[in-house]
């Protein structure tokens, strides 16, 4: 479980996160949704220590990450897997080497054992033939799957996904979403996903936090998101003409 308490973050005097309080539950897919520029990525990067919060606490199983020094943070970070928006695969390494990289750095596994683990992780994300290819030689969807394989190679306790289906077609997006959802329950990990894709919200959102102008505007389950009373959330959810028509259809039916 990760608990975010009273987090504030600003850049050059401009407040980006204002008094954020969220609990991310273990074994659940926790979504942070919101418009572009609402502070989602800043929140995630603050949670993993890539940005320093101005004030507040981020507790990993009760341990305040913000108060830790580099070495203690390192121990927590070994339990974190992260899927970046662009994949962030190492260009100079093959797909297999990318997945083996954290194993080589932090475990005493032999190369054969590392290869076996990488093979298992790549199979788990349905990538069975790309082992020897370089990131530049594979598609966007495959890159995301390699990044997931790398993120789970160390058996993390926490999985962070920054817009996992950005730039992907709807079918591949659903595949990635389902993969994240399955892995969360299979490995019993705390998963946090940033997205503004409503398909993802409706597919995998166990706990949803809607961020608006750097503040938590709404929290709830995917079943509640369509009926929320928050006008800002409604503007976000029913942004397209199609969704507006769907809403009016739902309204007519309920009457």
């Amino acid at each position, binding site marked *: 479980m990760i608990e975010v308490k009273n987090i504030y973050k600003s850049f050059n005097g401009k407040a980006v996160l204002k008094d954020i309080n969220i609990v991310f539950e273990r074994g659940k897919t926790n979504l942070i949704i919101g418009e572009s520029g609402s502070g989602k990525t800043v929140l995630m*990067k603050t949670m*993993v*220590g*890539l940005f320093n919060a101005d004030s507040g606490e981020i507790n990993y199983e009760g341990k305040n990450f913000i108060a830790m020094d*580099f070495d203690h*943070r*390192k*121990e927590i*970070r*070994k339990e*974190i897997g*992260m899927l*970046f*928006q*662009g994949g*962030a*695969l*190492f*260009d100079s390494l093959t797909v297999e080497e990318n997945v083996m*990289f*954290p194993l*080589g*750095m*932090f475990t005493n596994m032999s190369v054969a054992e590392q290869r076996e683990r990488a093979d298992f992780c790549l199979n788990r994300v349905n990538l069975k033939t790309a082992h020897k290819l370089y990131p530049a030689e594979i598609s966007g969807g495959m890159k995301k799957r390699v990044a997931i394989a790398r993120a789970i190679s*160390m058996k993390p306790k926490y999985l*962070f996904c920054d817009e996992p289906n950005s730039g992907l077609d709807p079918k591949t997006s659903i595949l990635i979403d389902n993969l994240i959802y399955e892995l969360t329950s299979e490995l019993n990990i705390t998963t946090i996903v940033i997205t503004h894709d409503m398909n993802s919200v409706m597919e995998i959102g166990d706990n949803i936090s809607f961020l608006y102008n750097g503040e938590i505007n709404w929290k709830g389950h995917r079943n509640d998101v369509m009926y929320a009373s928050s006008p800002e959330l409604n503007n976000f959810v029913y942004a397209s003409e199609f969704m507006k028509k769907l809403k009016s259809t739902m309204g007519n039916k309920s009457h």
Partner: protein
Amino acid sequence: MNWFFHIGRYYIMMSRVFSKPEKWSIYRKQFIKEIDNLGLGSLGIVVIISIFMGAVITIQSAFGFESPWIPLYAVGVASRDSIVLEFSPTIVSLILAGKVGSNIASEIGTMRVTEQIDALEIMGINSKSYLILPKIVAAVFINPFLIVISMFLALLGGLIAGQMTGAVTHYEFIYGIQYDFRPFNVTYALIKTLFFAFIITSVSAYHGYYTQGGALEVGKSSTNAVVYSSIVILLFNFILTQLLLS
């Protein structure tokens, strides 16, 4: 003010670079890779430039010494001193700052803008040490070899050019090279090389590591890396010359 900010941030970065590596075996592999990349990858340009510059220095020296009062072997002496004291350690280092410095800044800068450095940090890896330390150690190790090769080839270029143009005979040139030779001059050149290798890699890595933005900024970082490492090399060239030769 801006200068103080950069100097301070550079020192903070270097304190992280020289912290204990996560795993020595991984760093060893990176070190060997960097020797190949930074050292052997620069051999071609060092060879070509050294031969031609050695030839030009010899011809220019011969042109300047066209007097019956100056013995012909003085061309060898002047060429040797120019090559050993200044051309090989400083000019070749400046050329390496262009080649290796831009390579380092663009490599690390691209890793920064594509979030690969963030990925390393999230894994719990000290990205500064992992990315920069092997480059510094490799350059400090391999550059003295490149400079010694450069000295030899530049003198060889001078010998061939002197012979071909008739500016100085083979015998006079070799006599001049050996005349009043001071081994400390080579030591001085190698000391300078060690400093310059450190400057090229660390200053360029600094510019790459703190790149913000996209492809355009990577290009700017690459240019800044070459410009600032060249300026710092020239500054240290002056300081070291004053300290070691005065």
